[in-house]
C-alpha cells in the first residue's frame, strides 16, 4: 500500500512536471507579448526603452531554460508567481475563484444525476419502447447542442421572457440554477448512454434473473443490483468529468459572468498573463490526477472483487 502510494506520488509529480513544461513552451511559442500587457499598450503609447526595462525586470529576456527553472523553483516553494496584470499572487487569485467553480461543479453534478439516472433507467427498462426512444432523443439533442447556445436559450426563456431567474452573476442559489442546468445538460447524454448500456448488460446477468426469481420487485432489482454493476464504467468517466469541471467551464462561466476559474483563465489567455495560465494548468492537473486516483479507490468500494494487486493493477 505504502509502495503504491509512493509510486502514485512519483507519477503525479512526473505528470505535473511534463504538463508545466508543455504549457510553458506553448505559451512562449504563442504570439503576443506580455510586456505590452503589463504596460497596458492598448491604452496608450509605450516606448521601446520602457518595454526593455520591464522585460529585464521580469526576466523575460533570460534564456527559456532559465525562465522555466526560475518558475519551477518558485513552484517548489509554493510560490506560483504574481499576475502580470494586477500584481496579485496567482495562488490568491485562484483561491478567490475556486469556491465559485466548486459550487458550479456541484450544481452541474446534481443536474447531471437528475437527468441521466432516470432517463438511463427508463431507456433500459423499456428497451425499444417509447421511453427508450425519448431517452435516445434527449441524448441526441443534448450531445448536439453547444453549451453557449443552450445557455443563451435558457437566459432568454427563464430570465428575459419569464423573469424568474437572474441573467448572470453570482451571490445566491438562484444565480446558480441556469449555469448548472447548462453544464449538466450538455454532459448528460454521455452518461445516459453509458448507464443505459451498463444496465442492459446487468439486467441480462444471472444474478438479476435470480433476484427476479426470488420475487424481488423490479425497481428494487434495478436500483440495488443492476444499477450498482452498471456504475463502474460510469464512475471512470465521472472521474474525468469531475477533474474537467473543477478546472472551470470557460464557456459557461464567461456567458453567465460566473466568477470561477474558467472565466479567470479566459481573461488570462487573452492578456498573455503567463503566471496565471501556468498556475491554472498546474492546479487543474492536480485536480484531474487526484480525481482519477479517487475513482480508482472507489472501484474497490463498488466492486469488492477489485482489489489492488489482484483484480486490477491500481
Amino acid at each position: 500500500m505504502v509502495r503504491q502510494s509512493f509510486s502514485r506520488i512519483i507519477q503525479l509529480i512526473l505528470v505535473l512536471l511534463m504538463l508545466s513544461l508543455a504549457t510553458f513552451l506553448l505559451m512562449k511559442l504563442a504570439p503576443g507579448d506580455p510586456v505590452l500587457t503589463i504596460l497596458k499598450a492598448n491604452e496608450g503609447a509605450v516606448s521601446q526603452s520602457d518595454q526593455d526595462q520591464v522585460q529585464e525586470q521580469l526576466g523575460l529576456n533570460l534564456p527559456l531554460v532559465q525562465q522555466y527553472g526560475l518558475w519551477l523553483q518558485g513552484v517548489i516553494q509554493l510560490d506560483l508567481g504574481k499576475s502580470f496584470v494586477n500584481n496579485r499572487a496567482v495562488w490568491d487569485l485562484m483561491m478567490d475563484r475556486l469556491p465559485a467553480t466548486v459550487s458550479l461543479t456541484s450544481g452541474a453534478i446534481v443536474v447531471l444525476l437528475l437527468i441521466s439516472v432516470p432517463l438511463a433507467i427508463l431507456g433500459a427498462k423499456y428497451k425499444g419502447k417509447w421511453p427508450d426512444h425519448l431517452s435516445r432523443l434527449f441524448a441526441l439533442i443534448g450531445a448536439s447542442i453547444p453549451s453557449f447556445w443552450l445557455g443563451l436559450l435558457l437566459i432568454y426563456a427563464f430570465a428575459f421572457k419569464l423573469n424568474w431567474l437572474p441573467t448572470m452573476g453570482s451571490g445566491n442559489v438562484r444565480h446558480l440554477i441556469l449555469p448548472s442546468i447548462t453544464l449538466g445538460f450538455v454532459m448528460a447524454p454521455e452518461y445516459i448512454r453509458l448507464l443505459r448500456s451498463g444496465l442492459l448488460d446487468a439486467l441480462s446477468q444471472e444474478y438479476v434473473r435470480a433476484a427476479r426469481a426470488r420475487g424481488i420487485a423490479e425497481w428494487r432489482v434495478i436500483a440495488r443490483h443492476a444499477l450498482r454493476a452498471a456504475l463502474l464504467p460510469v464512475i471512470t468517466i465521472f472521474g474525468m468529468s469531475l477533474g474537467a469541471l473543477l478546472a472551470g467551464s470557460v464557456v459557461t462561466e464567461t456567458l453567465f459572468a460566473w466568477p470561477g476559474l474558467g472565466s479567470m483563465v479566459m481573461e488570462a489567455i487573452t492578456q498573455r498573463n503567463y503566471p496565471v495560465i501556468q498556475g491554472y494548468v498546474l492546479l487543474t492537473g492536480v485536480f484531474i490526477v487526484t480525481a482519477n486516483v479517487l475513482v480508482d479507490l472507489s472501484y474497490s468500494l463498488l466492486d469488492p472483487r477489485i482489489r489492488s494487486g489482484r483484480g486490477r493493477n491500481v
Partner: protein
Amino acid sequence: MSLGIRSQRSKIFFGFILILCAVTFLSGCSQASRSSGSSSEENTPATSVSKDITIIHSLPNDTLDPHNTWITLRAGVTETLLRLDENMKISPWLASDWETKDDRTWVFSIREGIQFQDGTPLDAQAVKASFERGIADSKALAAALKIASMEANGQQLQITTTEPYPAFPTELVHPTTSIISVAAENQMGKEAFNNAPVGTGPFKVTSFTPGSEIHLVRNDDYWDGKAKLNEVTFKFNADANVRTLAFQSKQADIVFHLSPEMLTSIEADNELSVSSVTSLRTHYFTYNPASSSVSDHRVREALDKLIDRDSIVQDIMLGHASPANGPFNASLPFGNREGYQKLDEAGALRLLESAGYTKGSDGKFQKDGKPLTLKLIAFTGVNPELPLIPQVVQSEAAKAGITIEIVSVEYPEVYIADHTDWDMSTSSYLTSPRGDGGSFLNSAYVPGGSYNPANIQVDGLEPILKELNETGDTEKRNEITQQAVTVINKALPHSYIINPNILVGINQRVTDWKPGAEEFYIVTHTLDVK
C-alpha cells in the same frame, strides 16, 4: 452477509458523495460573494426611499486596485486630479488649478476641504503618497507619468518629470492615476484595500466578487454634494447577447456595449432607450511600406477611394459609427475638419491607370503581366465588426478589378512585425484615450513605436511631432495635431475607415446621466432614477 456489508458500504459511499456535493455547493454559494469591506447592512443608510441602480459593463475585473484598473474611477469610488469635460477638454477636479514653471516642473493646487472616504484629509502629501504607491505598483503608470521627484507643501504639489513633458496633465485624467488614501491601505493591508479601495468619490465599495460584480453604497460625506442614489450594483459580462438580454429583462438599468443587431427588439420597448456615443476608437487599414504594390502612393490612394465608408457605417454598423477622415474622431477639438473620402471607383481606376496598371482580358488590373493581387491581414479583436470591414472592401475592389485575399490572424501586430508578405492590415486603436492626440501620433508614426509594427515613417512629420512634444498649451497642441494629420493624410500610410460608436442601453427610469466617449465617468453623484 457479504451482500449486506457491501450494500452498507455503497450507501456510505453515495451518502458521502451527496454530503460532499451539498457542502461544496453551499460553501461555494456563500463564498462566491466574498465581502471584502464592511457589510452592506452596516453601511446602508437608513432612508425610507432607497434608490438603487444596476449597471453592466463588458470588461471583467479581477481586482479593484485603482492603479491597475479603470473600474474604481468608473464606479465612482476614486477620482483624479484632472478630468475630461463633455468636450473632451482637460478641466480641474481634485486639483483646482495647475501651472507649469518650465517644461518639466508642474505645480498643482489641491482643492481644500476634501476628505477620503476613511476621513483622512486630502492634501498634497496624501496625493504624493498616492502617486508613489501607483508608481511602485504599476509599471504602466510609472512609464506613463515619468515622475522624477515630488514636493508636497500644504495643498501645493510640485511634480518634476524625468524629461520635458508638456503633455503631462493629459496623463492625470487617466483612471489609473486615481488618488487613493494610502493611510487606509496601510491600515487595511494591500490585499483588503485592493478589494475595497478608499478614494474621494461619491460611492464606497461594500463588496466585490472578482470577475463578477461590485456593490457600492453612497458616501454621505462626498465633497461635491451627496449622491442621489443610495446603492449601485456594477456588474461585468463579456457576452454582448447576455448583456442585452439583462437590459431587456429590466434586470439592469444601464448596459454598455450592446450588440447592434439586437437594437430593433430593444426599440420596441418604450421603457428602454439606446444611446449611441461616438467613441475614441478608430478602425483603419495599415499599408505595408515594404510591399511592391502599395508602396506606390497612387495604389494606396486608389484603395482609399474604394473603401465604401458609408456602406460600412450603414450596413455593418447599422448607422452606429461615423466615417473617419484621420486618426482622430472629427468631433474632437484636434480632429480633422475636412470631409471623408467617399466611394469613388472612377477616381480609383484613373489612379491605377496612371500608376501603369492596365486591365487584362479577365477584367483584372495588371502591371508587367503581374495581376494586382493584395494580401489583407484581418483580425477579430474585441469589435465584432472588424472582420466584416475587409469583406466590404474586398467586394468593392473586385468590382474595380483588384483581387484582395483576406488572411485572418489573431494578432496582426505580431504578424506584421514577423512577416513581409502582406500588403494591407486592419488595425484598431483607442487613438485619443486622454483627450489628446500626442500619444497616438508618437506611437503610430515613429519607428519603434508600440502601434507601428510596420515601422512607418512619414516625410515631414518629425519636426511637427517635435514641436508638439515641446508644446504645453492645449489650443496650440490641437493646432499642431491637426497639422500633423494633414501631413499624414497626404502621405497616406493608413486609410482611416470609421469611428465605431459605443451603444449604451439606458432604462427610462435613469435620469441626469449620459454616457461619455471616454467611458471614464460612469457612476456619478448626479446619476438618479425616477
